[in-house]
């Protein structure tokens, strides 16, 4: 877009004249508690951290909270924040030539040195293009010059960076706490020697975990599958290994406290990172290994500090599987003591389906209590549970449900997935059967106050998981399954939510795409696609036209069974988990072989050999991989 206003003071003046014309103007002004405002003219490195959706979704993001604190603690750098304007504001900004700006000082994004974008999920991609356009920055990395900001992206979706490769200068794969400083140091050295853009990108190649797509070229077979991705320069590593920290650093305790309501308005403390359960559909469980815990004391201290710094009335203890935190009972006991004294709501998501979880939550109830209790069985038959490696027996689920209703909760939410590999209509109907049994427990306990909500999403085989070889159900099949489930639930009084099959397909082709997908994303954006994660905004037709314009077939990405030997567009990005392990797990799933918690027994996923030096530098109980003798592979 054509930028006509570039001075922060002029942007402020324009804002005051226009903010009352848009919904929720509080999104666009900054000034919140714990915002850090540094002197623009004297700080050499200026970073804009962007969550590519609106303020309310972006502010609670933990990755950006961590980076904001880390960057602003450096005397030589500043970090500001930016989020996408909602469409009413975007229209006004475009009409007036107002660029997207940093909330702290209202400098246009184009005046920052670095723009760091987090991509936790794929449906944000068109928003990234919109962001660059609203900043007046060329969309294609190849078209940017030395005076344009360096565009960096990280986050879970970037474990397959290829669909966004032409738009991003450098991807940072994995955890950002350490690599951010290496990036800033390298950038600063380049800035002081006034090099060109090529020089900057080449120097970034020296940082482990950094992937610069410009230095790689994909070659394809005639059938459209990948032949290879080749580095084009000697210093570009053939395989980019994700970065991890050997020990989790202290969590951020001075987060931004927004004055308007946002999706998660609370203190978030990560109690551990990674998961040892090995559910075969789970992307996070594969890419965040190994499990590393924080100590109970560290967590409690962080909560106390954060409460003092924010005044929040709610704390969330985050992890992928809270029940697996080794000191969970002790932690809950200590936290609940503080909670009752302070009218604090404590949430503990991702609990296992067992009665112990109910006792834990019961301790945390305090004086205020959420009315619903959430569990995620994911599948309803033993066969299906063995396929996905999440073995929860129905009687265990029913016992847990009984305990939940017994302890005073009246509403249970159950998360299931349809579209699992080898799933039949009987497996789908079993979801209704199990759900009816759960609600019956509630009716026995608390009568008609008992209620049950189902969230039924549709499985998308994700890169770097044992299911990466599999196709996704067709929209027709998804609809048949959804209808069968609805039919089986009729008259039960159970409420149900599910994912629109077309949204599932979007997620599927974006997450599994190769570099050619970038053209589809570009055309979709050109046609007006944005806010694809918003149900009311997502427009399937635009994407279908974009596929035609790019001369690509969406089914190639979504509905194709991959050959076991196929080279994937994300194979040169290594999350520490070996492809051979994923393949073995895929074959295990087909035979219904279970792989229990890997803290008890190592299945050689690859983490220990990949990070053996790091492990040696950070010994101790905080890593949950069992001790195994690691032989260097030759």
């Amino acid at each position, binding site marked *: 877009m054509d930028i006509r206003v570039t001075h922060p003071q002029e942007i402020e003046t324009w804002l005051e004249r226009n903010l009352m014309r848009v919904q929720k103007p509080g999104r666009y002004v900054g000034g919140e508690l714990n915002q850090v405002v540094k002197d623009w003219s004297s700080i050499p490195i200026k970073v804009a951290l962007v969550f590519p959706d609106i303020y309310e979704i972006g502010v609670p993001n933990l990755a950006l909270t961590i980076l904001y604190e880390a960057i602003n603690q450096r005397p030589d750098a500043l970090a500001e924040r930016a989020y996408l304007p909602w469409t009413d504001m975007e229209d006004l900004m475009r009409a007036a030539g107002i660029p997207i700006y940093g909330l702290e000082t209202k400098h246009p994004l184009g005046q920052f040195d670095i723009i760091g974008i987090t991509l936790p999920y794929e449906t944000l991609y068109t928003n990234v293009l919109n962001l660059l356009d609203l900043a007046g920055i060329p969309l294609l990395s190849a078209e940017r010059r030395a005076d344009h900001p360096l565009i960096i992206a990280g986050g879970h979706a970037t474990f397959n960076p290829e669909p966004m490769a032409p738009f991003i200068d450098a991807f940072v794969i994995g955890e950002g706490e350490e690599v951010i400083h290496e990036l800033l140091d390298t950038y600063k050295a380049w800035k002081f020697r006034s090099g060109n853009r090529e020089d900057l990108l080449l120097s970034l190649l020296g940082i482990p975990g950094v992937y610069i797509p410009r230095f790689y070229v994909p070659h394809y077979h005639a059938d459209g599958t990948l032949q290879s991705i080749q580095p084009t320069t000697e210093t570009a590593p053939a395989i980019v290994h994700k970065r991890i920290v050997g020990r989790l650093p202290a969590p951020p305790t001075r987060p931004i406290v927004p*004055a308007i309501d946002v999706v998660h308005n609370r203190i978030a403390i990560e109690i551990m990172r990674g998961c040892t359960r090995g559910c075969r559909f789970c992307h996070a469980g594969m890419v965040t290994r190994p499990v590393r815990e924080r100590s109970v004391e560290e967590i409690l201290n962080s909560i106390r500090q954060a409460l003092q710094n924010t005044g929040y009335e709610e704390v969330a203890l985050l992890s992928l599987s809270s029940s697996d935190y080794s000191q969970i009972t002790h932690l809950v006991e200590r936290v609940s003591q503080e909670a009752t004294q302070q009218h604090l709501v404590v949430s503990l998501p991702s609990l296992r389906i067992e009665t112990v979880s109910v006792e834990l939550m019961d301790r945390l109830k305090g004086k205020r209590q959420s009315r619903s209790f959430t569990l995620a069985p994911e599948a309803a038959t033993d066969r299906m549970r063995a396929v996905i490696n999440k073995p929860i027996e129905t009687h265990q689920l029913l016992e847990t449900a009984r305990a939940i209703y017994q302890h005073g909760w009246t509403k249970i939410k159950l998360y299931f997935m349809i579209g699992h590999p080898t799933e039949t209509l009987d497996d789908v109907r079993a979801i209704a059967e199990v759900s009816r049994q759960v609600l019956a427990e509630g009716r026995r306990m608390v009568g008609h106050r008992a209620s049950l909500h189902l969230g039924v999403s549709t499985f998308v085989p994700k890169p770097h998981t044992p299911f990466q070889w599999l196709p996704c159900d067709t929209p027709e099949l998804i609809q048949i399954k959804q209808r069968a489930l609805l039919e089986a639930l009729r008259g039960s009084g159970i409420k149900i939510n599910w994912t629109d099959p077309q949204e599932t397909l979007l997620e599927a082709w974006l997450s599994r795409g190769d570099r050619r997908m970038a053209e589809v994303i570009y055309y979709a954006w050109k046609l007006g696609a944005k806010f694809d994660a918003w149900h009311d905004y997502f427009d399937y037709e635009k994407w279908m036209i974009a596929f035609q314009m790019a001369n690509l077939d969406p089914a190639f990405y979504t509905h194709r069974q991959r050959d076991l030997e196929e080279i994937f567009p994300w194979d040169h990005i290594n999350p520490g988990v070996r492809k051979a392990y994923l393949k073995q797990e895929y074959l295990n799933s087909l035979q219904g072989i279970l792989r229990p918690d890997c803290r008890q027994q190592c299945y050689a996923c690859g983490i220990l050999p990949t990070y053996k030096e790091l492990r040696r530098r950070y010994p101790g109980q905080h890593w949950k991989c069992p001790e195994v003798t690691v032989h260097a592979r030759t």
Partner: protein
Amino acid sequence: MLQRFRIDYAKTQPLRYVSSLDLQKVWERYLRRAGLPLAYSHGFSPQPRLQQAHPLPLGYLGAHELVDVWLESAAELLSAEVQKRLLITPQPGIEINHVESIPLEAPSLAKQVVAADYTVWLLDPADPSDLTERIARLLNTPSLTRERRGKTYDLRPLIESLALLTDHPGNLLALQMRLAAREGASGRPEEVIAALGLDPFAVRILRTRLLIEPSS
């Protein structure tokens, strides 16, 4: 022991675009940070006892806003102590003017407010003499039917005074107005601006004070 304090504060730029509902949360967190133990209502979901006088609409600034808070602590708190603690952990967008202890049984603020004074700056250039004329014409009209949120009402009786500020510093023109602010009969400055034929969005509105009827 339970005590009630009335806090007179200014709502400044950082909280300008925050609704009174969200402001309730801001206050709750502010008091928590200050270590002031808010009293909670009883019942299934206890609510903090915190009462704003007359909600300041989104987009307005306030020079002397009022909020009543109920605190429950072991020992008696002095208003000076409350004020001191609030100043130690400042909240962007809230500037404390004054804290006073008031009787628990004092009538609610909402019932006592009768009118409010506003200063409204026009962000667009305007001709002062033309504006003076428009004001005179508006004040001479016996009734001003306007529509808001699908309901028609008469704005004229809600305007108690309206004048151009003549000796105002700065380069923006400003109006001074006093509007009724009773429950169910409240005038909004931007409605007056619109009735004057000006852009109701291109303004900066400061509520300078709330007028309280002495309790009978």
